[in-house]
């Protein structure tokens, strides 16, 4: 009888971990799994929500989206925005981290500077958008300063000129996002074993060689996972674009997210929007497989 009881107890215990993870699993199923299935189903219908009796139309929404010139250009803009953001985030994040790690700084100065350098990351995208709109206003301070410095003549309409709008948005995003890299890279720099540098100095390696042969290899896993995550997130950009240019002028800064948003809430083409959203989701998923792999190998 005693034995039986312990078997019973064991059986009950097998279920224990599942009770602990149940609330999270339930919520994530309702808020992630079901919506993703739903959006996929929507994307195969002629139209939903406003349409009382939706019909199955297969992949025709996808076909239409892919052939849409605006969507094609939105993919191009998204790629431009994302690639340049990631590259400059990395360059600036690394530069700031190296500067903060400089031996010329006392620990107090370093702490203060670190706080200042993190500032841009602490702001809400909506607020970043509006502050930069003010700074970059044709009559704003940026044009004034550049004119005084003799770098531009006349007034540049940074956000409403087709030739500058996308580059300007990318610049704002670079300003906003580099601290994320800086913080992680600084922590990485401080964990490089000092003996390796000492050994390199004895071997006569200059500081550039030390950087390429010791620092970079040591930081490689951090750089890799930061860049992949940043790529996925930046690709999904919405508030910054929506609140500065709204995708305009014309479609000059249309990105995949603003394109999808407009299809949904301005044109009420819920099924086409779902197809567009599915394309963004699929691209994110493919890249995130690389991310999960890079996480597993750490």
């Amino acid at each position, binding site marked *: 009888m005693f034995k039986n009881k312990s078997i019973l107890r064991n059986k009950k215990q097998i279920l224990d971990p599942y009770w602990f993870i149940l609330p999270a699993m339930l919520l994530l199923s309702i808020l992630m799994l079901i919506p993703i299935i739903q959006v996929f189903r929507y994307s195969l219908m002629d139209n939903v929500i406003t349409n009382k009796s939706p019909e199955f139309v297969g992949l025709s929404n996808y076909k239409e989206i892919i052939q849409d010139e605006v969507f094609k250009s939105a993919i191009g803009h998204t790629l431009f925005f994302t690639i340049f953001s990631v590259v400059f985030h990395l360059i600036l994040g690394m530069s700031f981290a190296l500067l903060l790690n400089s031996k010329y700084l006392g620990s107090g100065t370093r702490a203060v500077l670190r706080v200042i350098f993190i500032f841009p990351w602490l702001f*809400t995208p909506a607020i970043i958008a509006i502050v930069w709109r003010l700074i970059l206003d044709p009559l704003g301070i940026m044009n004034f300063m550049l004119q005084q410095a003799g770098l531009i003549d006349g007034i540049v309409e940074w956000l409403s000129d087709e030739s500058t709008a996308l580059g300007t948005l990318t610049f704002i995003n670079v300003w906003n996002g580099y601290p994320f890299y800086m913080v992680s890279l600084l922590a990485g720099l401080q964990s490089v074993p000092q003996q390796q540098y000492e050994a390199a100095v004895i071997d006569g390696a200059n500081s550039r060689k030390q950087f390429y042969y010791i620092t970079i290899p040591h930081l490689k896993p951090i750089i890799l996972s930061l860049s992949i995550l940043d790529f996925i997130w930046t690709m999904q950009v919405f508030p910054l674009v929506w609140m500065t240019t709204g995708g305009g002028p014309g479609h000059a800064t249309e990105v995949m997210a603003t394109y999808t948003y407009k299809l949904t809430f301005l044109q009420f083409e819920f099924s086409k929007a779902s197809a567009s959203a599915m394309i963004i989701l699929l691209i994110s998923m493919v890249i995130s497989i690389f991310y999960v792999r890079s996480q597993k190998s750490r």
Partner: protein
Amino acid sequence: MTIKSLKYKRMGSKALVYFLLLFGVIFAAFPVLWLVSISARANGEVFASPPSFLPKVLDLGAYKKIFQDPDKLRFFVNSYVIAIVVTFVTLFISMLTAYGFSRYEFRGKKIINMIIIGTQTVPPIALMIPYFGLMVTFKLYDTYGALILTYLALTLPYGVLMMTGFFNTIPKSLDEAVLIDGGSRLLTLFRVIVPISLPGIVSTGLYTFLLSWNEFLFALTLTKSNEMATVPIGIQLLMGQHSYEWNEMMAMSFLGSLPIMLLFLFFQKYFLAGMAAGSLKD
């Protein structure tokens, strides 16, 4: 190389580092200082030519206007209520889940863990359309409930991964001692593990609060009335209503950034830990 030339070289590189740091400070801080400076002047002085860096006449009228307008204060109340509820619910559920992950071996653990890592990358825009349908169907559209629920989808994956990381660093022998004395699992979690991992909980909580405070897309699509608008949406409304009250918009932006700034300054160490953990599982 003589000692003297080495000394010059060192001075030169020191000067270069200081120059670059100064440039960095201007790059990082100028927009922030400009925001504060504009918020403290009369609207007529915003585009004064030539612009002056400091307000010629200090004018806090923009702040006064916001504090005297219950509709605008409501944006802040909404943001605070939602962010605080989301933070506590996320922490509670994440702690339970993290306990399961760090203290048990069970079937499906690896796959579930990978799915959770993967959900961090699901684009909100893909969830937006089904969420809209869901909230309308369940009559949650334009309520706190809609935002609290959907924000949990964004914060839970981080919460679970971060808390699991922190719990894994606590030796199992600690809670086993309590279990042998006849304590329940929940008791060990809340009496033993939670107090020890308080720094980790603070980090996770700060990051969750930040995510919720900053959210824009769901707030834009799942609410419509001004009474439900959060701070980011409130700023957008302000921009639409009278697009040239720049001093007021900047005052609103300053007040909207204040909680995050203060949390950052007071809890810097925890904030940085959360920031690093947000990108890196360890």
